[in-house]
């Protein structure tokens, strides 16, 4: 998904029929609380157990923070939440000047892997041909009983 030219500190929320909820915000730490709140709300409405809700919240926080540190100037951080098979999938991405992926030896990566069922990261060349796009995907299931 190409990032548009929106640069002010706005958060865009769009609800897409099959693609869940997407947050688009400036890659700025002041926006983290919004991403956390949306993550918590989605997990809560999936009736995740409280531990899993908190885990997802922390994981989204960590993911977005990681991407923010890698973001190009005035980049837009996108965070998309999709519920699928009782799991919450989070697709986060940001444009970056560097092609280096997040450090998988870091403490932050350790935190992510401990918090969610799966976490993957990769870097694409930007579709505009200028710079790169860093992706982090998470999958989180509830550890507790899932009541349909």
């Amino acid at each position, binding site marked *: 998904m190409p990032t548009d030219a929106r640069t002010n500190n706005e958060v865009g929320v769009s609800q897409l029929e099959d693609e869940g909820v997407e947050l688009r915000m400036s890659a700025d730490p002041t926006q983290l609380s919004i991403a956390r709140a949306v993550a918590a709300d989605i997990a809560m*409405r999936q009736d995740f157990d409280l531990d899993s809700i908190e885990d997802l919240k922390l994981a989204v926080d960590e993911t977005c923070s990681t991407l923010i540190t890698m973001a190009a100037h005035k980049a837009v951080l996108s965070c998309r939440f999709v519920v699928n098979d009782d799991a919450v999938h989070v697709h986060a991405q940001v444009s970056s000047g560097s092609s280096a992926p997040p450090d998988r030896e870091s403490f932050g990566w350790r935190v992510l892997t401990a918090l969610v069922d799966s976490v993957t990261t990769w870097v694409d060349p930007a579709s505009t041909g200028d710079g790169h796009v860093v992706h982090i995907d998470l999958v989180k299931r509830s550890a507790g009983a899932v009541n349909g």
Partner: protein
Amino acid sequence: MTGSDSGDYDHLAPLFVELAATEEGPRREALRDELVTAHLPVAKHIARRFGHRGEPYEDLVQVATVGLINAVDRFDPERGSDFLSFAVPTIMGEVRKYFRDSSWSVRMPRRLKELHLAINSGTARLSQQLGRAPTPSELATHLGMTREEIHEGLAAGNAYQSASLDDMLMSDESSISLGSTLGTEDPEIEMIEQREALHPLLQRLPERERKIVIMRFFGNMTQTQIAQKVGISQMHVSRLLAKTLRQLREVLEEN
């Protein structure tokens, strides 16, 4: 003899009659002081009853004492009732007013505060029963509430992350010495600490925070398991983890 025995205070009744008959002046001040001081155990007793709500005991004693002073000033012995039956509701009213007005740095509606507290204690009970954290619908069933109400309460907990909220969750917990609960002689944690050759940043964390971080991210324990082990609420573990991660991140970014 116990402090709650109202008989202890009967001998003070004549002083109230004297106070009512005394004009403004040093004698009145002395009488007033004597009555307030003599009834301080009542104020302390009431303060203790509210102690589990997370406000420091000393603060509550002060508020209760203000209530006591008001009660001494307003009590009319002519009315025939005894002082305690007038003073106790007055003091409790003052303490309740304090909780209502000032104890939350971010004002949370009373109903939400109560909902939040109910969810917190319900979570503790259910975690004990289930051996894991409950889901919102399990909490709803347990507390006889709707899922929407539970959602609202949980969201309120997220929205009102104020210092007071943390204090509230601390209340009883802070009395437990965490050092002794966690111990340094936990072989599992010792092993992980050695094996992982932890980042020096972790070593600089306060002991409790470091142990919690290790248990969660290296020991594969859930927040609920950590909460039970450390003797604090799951919500408090959650806050400590979030806070510690934020701090670690800030330090890492500075470097």
